Each structure stands twice: as C-alpha cells, then as structure tokens.
C-alpha cells in the first residue's frame, strides 16, 4: 500500500497528508483538555517533544522496536500530563495558561541542555518508520475512540466541567479526577504524535516544540470549534495546508494566526464547527419546508 502511494502520489502531497494526520492527533489531544474540558493549555508542544525525544532516543540509542518506542514516548508524555494536571487543578483560565506555558518552556530548555538529545543541535537520523498508512491508521483509531469516549458517561462529565464546574460537582462528578484524566489522555496523544513526527522528519530539535507550536495546535482547536471532533480535524487540515499553500502565510505566521482569530471571534465565536449539530440542521430544513 505504502509503495503504491509513493509511486502514484507526489511526494510533496504525501508529506502534507502525513503532517495533517500528525496534526489531527495533536489537535484531538488538546481538544480533550481545552475544547472539551475547558482547561486552557498553552503548552501542548511540550508533551509532543517528550514523546518525540523519548521515542527517538529509544529507537536510535537502544534499538527499541518502533512500536515500543512510540508507546513509551506517549506513556511518558501522559505521565507528565498527569503531573501537570494535579497542580493546575487549583488554577483557572489565565493562571492555568501561564503554568502550561512555563511547563513547556522548562521542557524545551531541558532538551536544549540534554546531552543524549543532542542539546541545541537536536537529534537526526531516526529511522523513517512513520508511514502514511501507519499515521492514518492511528488517526482513524484515535478518532473512533475519541468519539466513543465523548459520547459516554466520562465524556459528558468532561463537557459538564467546561460548562459549569460547580453544577458538575453537585451532579456527583469528581472534577479533580476528571481534569487530571483529560490532561493525561490529551498528553498521551501529544506524545504519540511527537514520536510519529520524530520518525517522519528524521530530525528534531528543541525549537520545533516551542511556544509557537503550542499556539499553532491551540489554534487548530479554536478554529475548528472547541470540543468538536470534526472541528479539530478541520482546524488541523486548514492550518497544515495554509502555510504550505500560501507562502505569505508561512512568512507572516504570527500575523496570520492573530488575524484569523480576530475574524473568527467576530463571525464564528464558537469556531467553524463548534456549535454545528445535526439536530439544528434538520430543524432548519424542516422549518424552511413549512414556511
């Protein structure tokens, strides 16, 4: 399958498809934390880097099988997500955002000085194990499990925390536990995406996982619509393609993201798909037929 794809699809487009897949995993992870549970996290790239470095070091320096390295990276990221989840529980909004920024920055500086990670130079020469088929296979599984989770007792509890924390507690939801859970699972996905990224690019360095990367992932979630799975997917697609298609976007990234968010706040404050429901669409059609 992979051979078939590489033969018939231009390598450039194939690359974009793979990056879209990796970004979808990143966005769905952050969506769980920020979109669904409402905990503003601005350090998702930190979890991604933990997964990337862990997996890369394991395959290169310990000859670990790729799948084991991926899993280890994701689990270590999840563990850090769990740790971050605990102190952030007492914080809200801006304070939580600051702690997550600080955390990602500490991780970045750590790798900047981390000998086995090649310090500022980074790591290169990872086996290119990440294929189109693998990435999209994982993307499909992640989407299906995400959808299952969000339409369950646990998923509704996470949404309830976003909507009204006091009422969620009064309904018997252990909001502390649930927030830690969201951070843990979201970070797991961040770490997974990091491992895939490292073994696709075959090169990683601390600056790949800086503040701008975190903001980029957050933008995918916000653009698509907080808490919406199709929204996060759409956001990841748009924000992966836009810089590729429009040079001007790549050169003025910051300006582009800023402008995009302002336009969004004005025309679609809930994101592109944030408040789109089949029920509402049906109702609208029905009303039109009647009137």
């Amino acid at each position, binding site marked *: 399958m992979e051979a078939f794809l590489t033969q018939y699809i231009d390598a450039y487009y194939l690359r974009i498809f793979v990056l879209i897949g990796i970004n979808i995993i990143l966005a769905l992870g952050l969506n769980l934390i920020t979109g669904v549970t409402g905990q503003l996290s601005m350090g998702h790239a930190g979890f991604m880097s933990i997964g990337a470095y862990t997996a890369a070091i394991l395959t290169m320096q310990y000859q670990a099988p790729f799948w084991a390295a991926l899993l280890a990276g994701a689990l270590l990221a999840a563990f850090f997500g769990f740790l971050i989840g605990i102190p952030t529980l007492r914080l809200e909004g801006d304070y939580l955002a600051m702690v997550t920024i600080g955390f990602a920055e500490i991780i970045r500086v750590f790798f900047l000085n981390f000998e086995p990670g090649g310090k500022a130079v980074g790591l290169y020469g990872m086996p290119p194990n990440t294929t189109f088929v693998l990435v999209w296979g994982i993307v499909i599984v992640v989407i299906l499990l995400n959808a299952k989770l969000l339409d*369950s007792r*646990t998923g509704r509890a996470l*949404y309830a925390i976003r909507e009204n924390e006091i009422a969620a507690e009064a309904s018997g939801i252990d909001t502390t536990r649930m927030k830690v859970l969201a951070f843990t699972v979201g970070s797991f996905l961040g770490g997974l995406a990091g491992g895939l990224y490292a073994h696709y690019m075959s090169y990683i360095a601390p600056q790949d996982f800086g503040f701008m990367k975190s903001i980029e992932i957050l933008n995918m979630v916000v653009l698509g619509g907080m808490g919406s799975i199709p929204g996060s997917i759409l956001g990841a697609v748009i924000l992966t393609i836009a810089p590729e298609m429009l040079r001007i976007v790549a050169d003025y990234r910051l300006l582009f993201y800023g402008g995009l968010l302002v336009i969004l706040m004005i025309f679609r404050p809930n994101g592109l798909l944030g408040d789109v429901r089949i029920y509402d669409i049906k109702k609208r059609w029905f009303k039109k037929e009647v009137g």
Partner: protein
Amino acid sequence: MEILKLTGITQEFGGLRALDSIDMTVKQGQIYGIIGPNGAGKTTLFNIITGIYVPVEGTIHFHGQELKAMSPHKVAKLGIGRTFQNIRLFNKLSVIDNVRVGSHAINKSGFISDLFGLPLARREEGQIMIRAGRLLNLVGLYEKRDEYADNLSYGEQRRLEIARALALKPSLLLLDEPAAGMNASEKVELIELIYRIREEMKLTILLVEHDMNLVMNLCEIIAVLNYGRKIAEGNPEETKNNEAVISSYLGVEA
C-alpha cells in the same frame, strides 16, 4: 426519622457572620421551608450542606453520617440533589444531556469501559437514556430534549435543574428559590410537581423561597432566618403569626 440534622452551624466570610449557630432538624418525607430576607444566609446554608463551603463551626449529619468537610461530589453520591438560585445549567449541552450528566453519581462505567464501549458502559447508557427521558416527561420538557439548555425559557430552565437533580436519585432535594422568575400558572405547576416527586420518589425536600403563598402552601414546617440567625421555626400558621417574623420579614412584604 431524622434525615438531616444541623447543629451549631456557623459561617463567616471575612468579618461577616453569614450564619450564626444554626440548629435544624429535617425529618424524612417533610417539605421543609426556609425563608428570610435577602442576605439572611439561606443559600450559604445550602452551600454548606452540599459541601461547597466548610463551616467555621458546627456539624451536619445526613442519615446519621457526618458530612462536614466532604467534597460536593461525594455529598451528591450520598443522595443529596440540589438546584441553584442563579441557574447553573450546562448551557451548551442539550436538555437531555443535562439530565444524563445528572445521573453521573448513580452509575459506574469508567474511562476504559467508556473508551472501548464495553458491555458495562453500553448497559448503563441504555438505562441512563430511559431514565432521562422519563424525568424530562415528568417536568414537561421531553419535547425540548434536543434543544441547548440555554435556549429554554427561565421557568423551563428551573424545571430542567430539578430534573437534573432528580437524576441522581436523591433522598434529599434542596431547591433554592425554584419559583423565582416564574409566572402564576408556572408556580401552580411547580407546586404540583413538587408534591408529585415527593410522593413518587419518597423525597424529603428542603426549600428556600420568597413567594409566601407558595411556601405556606407547600411546607409543613418553616424556619425563618434573619442576619444568619434562626429567629423562628414552626408550621405555616405559627410562622405567619410570629411577632419576630412579622417585624423582620413578613411585615416588610405586606
């Protein structure tokens, strides 16, 4: 039989004494009213019972179990449901999802079984859905089950809060000004609803309300709070004629 017993409950915010050694005993099956002017401490009392605040002094016993310093979700699991004076719905969830969240406390399915849709999760989902439908029928909101909660009218939102609170199968239900913002006919329906849920679900109800007509109609026993103190307690007749009550509260209204 006593279901709820408060002894010496005292609460302070900064220098302000919001509650001053309140004793109160609520018996199984009662509809117990709490009245008093704004700022008297009624909502604070509810927040203490449900674990949102830990009182400076005093004890709370529910079915004989000490509740003090227990977190709100644990109190909910023990069977205390509540509504809020300032409506607190899950606005961007559908009406039926609000009630489904309400049943969180009585179900068990956890992360793993929810993630993979294991049998436990599927079995519970079915029951949750049926119960939520029934509760929405009870409060007359079944037709609106797919609307966002914040699309409902004020009176409907108050009834949705009751349905959500009932979803956790409470034995004690706390209603904080359930009739606020309702018109006369909605109030009549509310009284019927409260009677009905008490009978059908064997509930004990603790109710804060400003509408004297409603309180006198519904409640078997009424406590009057003023500046954090309980100044009277008795049946509606006794309360209506109590001197202290008339001068501090009822007199103002008349």
